[in-house]
């Protein structure tokens, strides 16, 4: 991690606050198996000069995550870093800021999917944006999962439509299927379900298919 060291040298902030990796209990086994690299943050700020993503070749995933963590610090929760796949979790109110940072620095330019998952036991709903790139050939095979957890009773999260235009229909689908309201989205309306749908969002876990 030479590049990490060189970035920290020019910075006089203390480097003694490793981010505690908070991992979901049900994901811990996967993490133990795959995470082999150090996910401690390199210290720095978002304004520090960042090497472009194309100039890095070895373990690009870890570099990307390190840069995001160094820019935003404790706010970012690294869920896993695997070959070609990364997942981070951010608080809902900061998701637009982080998404803009990711788009501007690593040429992740579109979202492949937006998935909402209901966790009734934890009273939370998780929204995952799978971000990918068409422009930078080093990033093209990688998928960065940007996730956030909202309260299940009042699921509201700022929309990423101004950062990634490609999320427009995905967010609308997530709204009707899981019931998460995306603030700032121009049309939070019914999309795939019948016009007279009068039940709870069907992908909530307490919605049961009739007869099952």
């Amino acid at each position, binding site marked *: 991690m030479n590049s990490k060291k060189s970035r920290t040298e020019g910075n006089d902030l203390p480097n003694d606050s490793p981010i505690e990796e908070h991992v979901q209990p*049900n994901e811990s086994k996967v993490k133990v198996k795959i995470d082999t690299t150090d996910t401690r943050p390199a210290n720095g700020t978002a304004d520090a000069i960042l090497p472009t993503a194309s100039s890095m070749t070895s373990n690009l995933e870890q570099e990307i995550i390190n840069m995001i963590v160094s820019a935003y610090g404790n706010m970012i929760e690294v869920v896993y870093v695997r070959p070609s796949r990364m997942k981070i979790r951010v608080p809902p109110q900061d998701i637009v800021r982080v998404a803009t940072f990711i788009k501007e620095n690593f040429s992740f330019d579109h979202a492949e999917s937006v998935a909402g*998952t209901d966790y009734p036991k934890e009273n939370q709903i998780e929204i995952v944006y799978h971000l990918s790139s068409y422009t930078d050939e080093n990033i093209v095979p990688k998928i960065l999962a940007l996730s956030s957890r909202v309260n299940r009773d009042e699921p509201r999260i700022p929309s990423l439509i101004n950062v990634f235009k490609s999320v427009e*229909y995905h967010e609308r689908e997530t709204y009707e299927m899981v019931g998460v309201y995306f603030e700032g989205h121009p049309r939070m309306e019914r*999309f*795939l379900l019948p016009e007279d749908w009068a039940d709870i969002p069907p992908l909530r876990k307490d919605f049961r*298919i009739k007869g099952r």
Partner: protein
Amino acid sequence: MTDFQEKVDETIKMGLEIVKETEEDRLMTLSVGPQHPGSGHFRFTVKVDGDYIVYCDPDPGYVHRGEEKMSEYRNFIQNIPHLERPVIHDSNNITYSYSLAVEELVNIEVPRRGQFIRAIASELNRQVYTLYWLAIYGIFLGHSTMFMWPTGDRELFIDLLEALTGARVTHAFNIPGGVRNDMPEGFKERCLRQIAYFEKRLVEYEDIFYNNPLFRQRTEGVGTLRKEDAISLGVTGSVVRASGVPFDVRKAEPYDIYNEIDFQVQYMKSGDSFARSMIPFLDMRESCHILRQLLDKIPQAGEVRAKLQPNPKGPAGESYKRVESARGALGYYIISDGSPKPYRVKISVGSFRNMLALPFLLVGSKLGDMPSIYWSLNYWPVEADR
């Protein structure tokens, strides 16, 4: 005094009010679909001002089946037959990325021969889907021959797939760990014979359809999607490749044995309907090339699937895998909580992503160009609705 002024005076004398036509009065709202033969099971409303479309609002969902919810009630193996329903012409590709994702979760390795057979089935299915799409594109641009020819030639590949999998369209062939059964006797020779015939046919397709001046007039320069718009809209498959982005999952992130295969990513830079209709055609040609290599390199004997537990399950975790289907990247995001049933299955399909380009391209173009733009998006409504 003109006749017009006399009429105005007369109207006022009769006590009637003269109302000037507003912009709203000029607009006419048309509903296209869901029963319209030109849209598939999909409806969109357009507002036209004279000949030009000024507003378009897609309304999908007529064939929404709730595949994602259904998946939560069945185990990893039971899910295969219903997950292929959204696009039965391309069922080997829609179950491909599902199998890849489950393999990562359950932690199984696919035997080498199984990987080859999977890829062969996937490429054959790509031909089947693309030929079906080409037939529809032909008939909606008024070219009946282009409906008949691909529909007929499609049977060749359906026959091959029937010999391979036992079913004509709904194969349920890919399973986590490999494929359901081995290739039949003499399949390789039969396949090579059909490919040789089909490549000759492709030349004829080009002559009668793609070089047809009427077809070119209706597609060239129509519905142009610029590269930067294609990227920001996040469209995929033939649509993004027609706009100058050489993105193909088989090349970008090779799965199974695709890193051993030599092929070119087909892309064009013009971004119009012609390019979008040309890319699947070029893909078919490239697919023949890939099939030849696959049949050449396949190991002579060996297992075609890994042994599975009766009710396979892995540790809790999640997986996102994608393959290149005939409509672009097709990704599965599967979360497992450690039980034999997935906790959540999210299917990210090319059709759903390409739908975003429909209002973008239709607004500002002529109503008469609607079929050539709509079908060039390689949009399959059933897949988009899931």
